[in-house]
């Protein structure tokens, strides 16, 4: 029985199938496509740097960095300065924070019956947008990262500006979201402590406790992170058992008959990606506590995403201190890209989870290109026997409204899923 058709950011539909008044199976369909992978075929390798950020206006920066990494991995030997690495990582952090704020105030708030806080969402995200623009020229859709480094030559003035954008965001975050110092919040290892304040996060958490939604939204308890960097740790875990090895050849994309989005699995198993996965692999104290008590429920998922804002703001401040502007922004690769025939992979952590770009080059032309987006992991539409991550999290629920809440704690977004 089809009960409801649901729209998510971009466009997708959910068909809820009920049995004995409980959700038995959810059919997830993506109804549009642009065929970006086909567009890339035959084009010059560097054109991907202009086209790929435009795959997504929401996380386009992650696509730029994934593209540049994929192209660089085609070289046998390429040097990237520490400065360029830091700048790329900082802008990626800013994009993550930018997205999390919007999700928190625009998506999550109304699901708990509160008014959508457009102005709160946009105040913080515009600060992060400005910080990205300072390095990248504009946001969304920047193309400032190139094979060999970045094109921007930042000055001390730019650093001061970015510092102030971060500080202002931290202030806003402390005042509105958590109502305690960020540094205190990061060290917190007890969910009960996170409840005891007046901020918007405790407001949401209290609702979860009051409504007894603590066990809601559990899935397979399997997590995966591909885009390790100076902060995130790559690896996979089942419950708390971690393994570090993630050979890309086990990542498999599969066509889905009823949808334009492909399913993606690792060793034929579905894995959750996103902030909860990152927190599990990084062993963030607060999330560990939440997971110990309530598993991979909506509470852990919501807490992980908010907690990540604090961690990334703090980490970005530290990274910015390490930035040495006297270093080179760009180191010219030894070989011209038109002489390269090889294949490469670039993986980064986008707001919603791991984003993977795979490329095959033949004399500098793109022979094949594959984009695997975070939402393809979380929203994989599996079969009744082998359900996807979000499908599994909704099974057994009675109310569509609650199913919607569970679904949206994954911060679903179909924009680049339908690339």
């Amino acid at each position, binding site marked *: 029985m089809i009960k409801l058709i*649901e729209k998510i950011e971009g466009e997708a539909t959910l068909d809820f199938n009920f049995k004995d008044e409980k959700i038995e199976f959810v059919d997830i369909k993506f109804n549009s496509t642009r065929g970006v992978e086909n567009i890339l075929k035959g084009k010059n390798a560097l054109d991907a740097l*202009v086209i790929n950020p435009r795959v997504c206006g929401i996380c386009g920066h992650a696509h730029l960095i994934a593209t540049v990494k994929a192209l660089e991995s085609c070289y046998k030997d390429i040097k990237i300065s520490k400065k360029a690495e830091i700048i790329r990582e900082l802008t990626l952090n800013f994009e993550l924070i930018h997205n999390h704020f919007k999700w928190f105030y625009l998506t999550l708030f109304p699901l708990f019956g509160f008014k959508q806080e457009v102005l709160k969402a946009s105040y913080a995200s515009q600060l992060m947008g400005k910080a990205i623009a300072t390095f990248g020229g504009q946001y969304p859709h920047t193309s400032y990262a190139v094979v060999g480094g970045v094109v921007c030559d930042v000055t001390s003035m730019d650093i001061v500006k970015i510092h102030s954008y971060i500080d202002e965001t931290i202030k806003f975050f402390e005042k509105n979201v958590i109502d305690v110092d960020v540094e205190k919040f990061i060290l917190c290892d007890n969910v009960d402590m996170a409840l005891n304040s007046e901020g918007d996060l405790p407001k949401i958490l209290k609702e979860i406790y009051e409504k007894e939604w603590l066990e809601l939204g559990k899935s397979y308890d399997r997590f995966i992170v591909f885009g390790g960097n100076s902060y995130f740790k790559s690896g996979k875990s089942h419950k708390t058992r971690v393994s570090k090895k993630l050979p890309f050849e086990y990542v498999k994309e599969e066509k889905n008959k009823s949808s334009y989005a492909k399913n993606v699995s690792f060793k034929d198993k579905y894995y959750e990606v996103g902030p909860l996965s990152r927190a599990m692999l990084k062993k963030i104290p607060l999330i560990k506590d939440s997971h110990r008590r309530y598993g991979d429920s909506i509470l852990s998922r919501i807490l992980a995403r908010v907690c990540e804002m604090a961690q990334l703001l703090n980490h970005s401040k530290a990274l910015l201190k390490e930035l040495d502007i006297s270093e080179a922004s760009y180191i010219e690769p030894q070989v011209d890209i038109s002489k390269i025939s090889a294949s490469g992979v670039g993986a980064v952590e986008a707001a919603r989870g791991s984003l993977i770009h795979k490329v095959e080059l033949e004399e500098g032309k793109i022979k094949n290109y594959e984009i695997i987006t975070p939402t393809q992991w979380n929203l994989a539409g599996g079969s009744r026997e082998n359900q996807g991550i979000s499908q599994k999290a909704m099974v057994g629920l009675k109310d569509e409204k609650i199913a919607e809440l569970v679904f949206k704690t994954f911060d679903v977004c179909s924009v680049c899923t339908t690339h």
Partner: protein
Amino acid sequence: MVERREALAKMFSAKGSKINTNRGTEYYDSLMQTMTKRLNELEQTEVATKNSIANVLEAEGLDRRDFMKWASATCAALMLPSNFTPLIAKAAELMNRVPVIWLELQDCAGNSEAILRSDAPTIDELILEVISLEFNETIMAAAGHQAEEHLEEAMHTFKGKYLCVVEGSIPTGMNGFYGTIGAKGETFEEHLLHVAKDAAAMVAVGTCATFGGVPAAAPNPTNAVGVQDIVKGKPIINIPACPANPSNITGTILHFVLTGQIPELDHLNRPKFAFGYRIHDNCERRAHFDAGEFVEEWGDEGAKNNFCLYKMGCKGPMTFNNCSIVRYNEGVNWPIGSGHGCIGCSEPQFWDKYAQERPMADTHFKAPTGGVEKTVDEFGLGLLTAAGIGIGIHAAASAIAGKKEECKEGAE
């Protein structure tokens, strides 16, 4: 190749891309009368949303002075003399009489992102989002059937009055089944035609909605086209760029509120107030071009000194847009500011013709005003003259009329 080159030369030197910023007292007097009449009429009509600019500004801690500063800047951006400022302010107050329905088709949500969420909360953003946005899929909380009902209701209530803003291209391949929307599974084309039917005018925002954009890049797998290829018999305003600049979107809507008409357009249906400028003519690095100082390789001494990016493939000389003046993210920066060079994102087919690092010097494209041929080293200083306008940011804020004419003559 010769044909292509000629076509390009024709496109860039078309009369339509020239603008006239001083039309004489008589013209402005009559324009003011038209606008006053229109605003008085609007004032009598019912409000579309309950929000008023006064409430919103107050809630945001902005005072009347901030608002008037915005109005005077917008007045300049729309190329109107400064005595139109009070009218602009009034028009902003009346924007809740002209509802906007924002459709997202084959897109990446980048334009919604640019205007609705990255650039906030400026007065531009407040006015559009809080005051007049009746329907937008990305930001509204309603979804599914509920959203669809809301759309139908808005279309019915504001029949013939609303502006339909479209983001994203329309896939026409495979009978439109590369993109469907809503409970009924309408194709994007059907959905667009349905909403366009009762719209006062169409505003295509971003390069996808205007010229097909990235989805239309060769080999155009879904046969994507722009709004103007689908909707006929309606006024269409194109606001290209990837993403489109928020201030141009607000400016266009404001112009519609002021006059009930669409702004003056160039040969590609782009508002002249925004696309009458050539990036190159107002570029902060232009002096380096004239002095023959170029970045020769990413990260070289030239790059460190903000030299001209022409040799690195900057498409500023063939791109019409005001981003060298308005910039992005509330004026924080713009692509050339970050040292990348322009990719020509407001021009048709930028995705195939101008993409990454293909210096114009290596192509056979001829630049708009002549002069740029073969290699940049072959021509002397200042061969590339201003395309007909030479407007500086400092001049825009003061009384524009009068000064512009001199400037223009001087440049030619």
